[in-house]
């Protein structure tokens, strides 16, 4: 019961902060709302017994990525942006319409069949160890070792790319 209430409150906060991200006037407001949103999502991960992901969400997204965002916003001293409903033009109206249609479609599908009746992968029984560090580590280095190692290529190339583009002087 208490979990239900907590979940709905978190979901509500997540939606409100998400709205703030896309409507906030200043980029800093957006960034901070996004941080709040990330915390809500981390909390839902915790509820889903994915502890490792929850903590990684906080470390990586809230602790590193968003700090980087804030850093760049401050570095560039970005000014306030036009908000969503100021100067509402045709393009924006079209975007809102499109998104609304997408949401309606998802809602329609939900009315057709709920996700929960989808077939179970292994068993219907609860499997709480799924999200622990141990099980993540075990699978990361057995079944998923190739993608895991290849992720390092993405990171390496991103580092090279970022340095090449943002370096001030080429010597």
């Amino acid at each position, binding site marked *: 019961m208490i979990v239900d209430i907590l979940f709905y409150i978190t979901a509500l906060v997540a939606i409100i902060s998400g709205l703030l991200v896309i409507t906030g006037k200043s980029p800093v407001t957006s960034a901070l709302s996004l941080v709040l949103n990330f915390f809500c999502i981390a909390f839902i991960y915790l509820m889903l017994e994915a502890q490792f992901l929850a903590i990684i969400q906080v470390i990586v997204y809230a602790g590193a990525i968003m700090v*980087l*965002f804030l850093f760049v916003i401050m570095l560039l001293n970005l000014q306030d942006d036009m908000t969503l409903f100021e100067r509402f033009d045709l393009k924006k109206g079209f975007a809102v319409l499109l998104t609304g249609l997408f949401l309606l479609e998802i809602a329609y599908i939900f009315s057709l069949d709920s*996700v929960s009746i989808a077939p179970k992968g292994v068993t219907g029984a*609860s499997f709480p160890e799924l999200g622990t560090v141990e099980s*993540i580590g075990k699978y990361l280095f057995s*079944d998923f070792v190739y993608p895991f190692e290849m992720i390092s290529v*993405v990171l390496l190339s*991103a*580092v090279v790319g*970022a340095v090449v583009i943002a370096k001030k002087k080429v010597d």
Partner: protein
Amino acid sequence: MNQHIDAIVALSAILFSMGVLGVLTRKNAITIFMSVELMLNSVNLALVAFSRLHNDITGQMLVIFVMAIAAAEVAVGLAIVISIFRNRQTADVTEINLLRW
């Protein structure tokens, strides 16, 4: 929590469409970029919910990979924003109009 899987997937759909809306309507490159991050996070949420639903680790693995890739994207993206700012003093995509947006 398994009874909430539906609700979580619905939440992820809502957050995803918010992200799409943000990308389509905002003008500041950084805000657009943050909307993309919102999209990726909604995907992660759905993946974790599905992983719990199926009792299968694949979803959570993919979430880890998505996080790493998001971090990589942020590095390159912010570098691009900085390089463009150095030449143009703006991050507003509507002012970036040498090549018609």
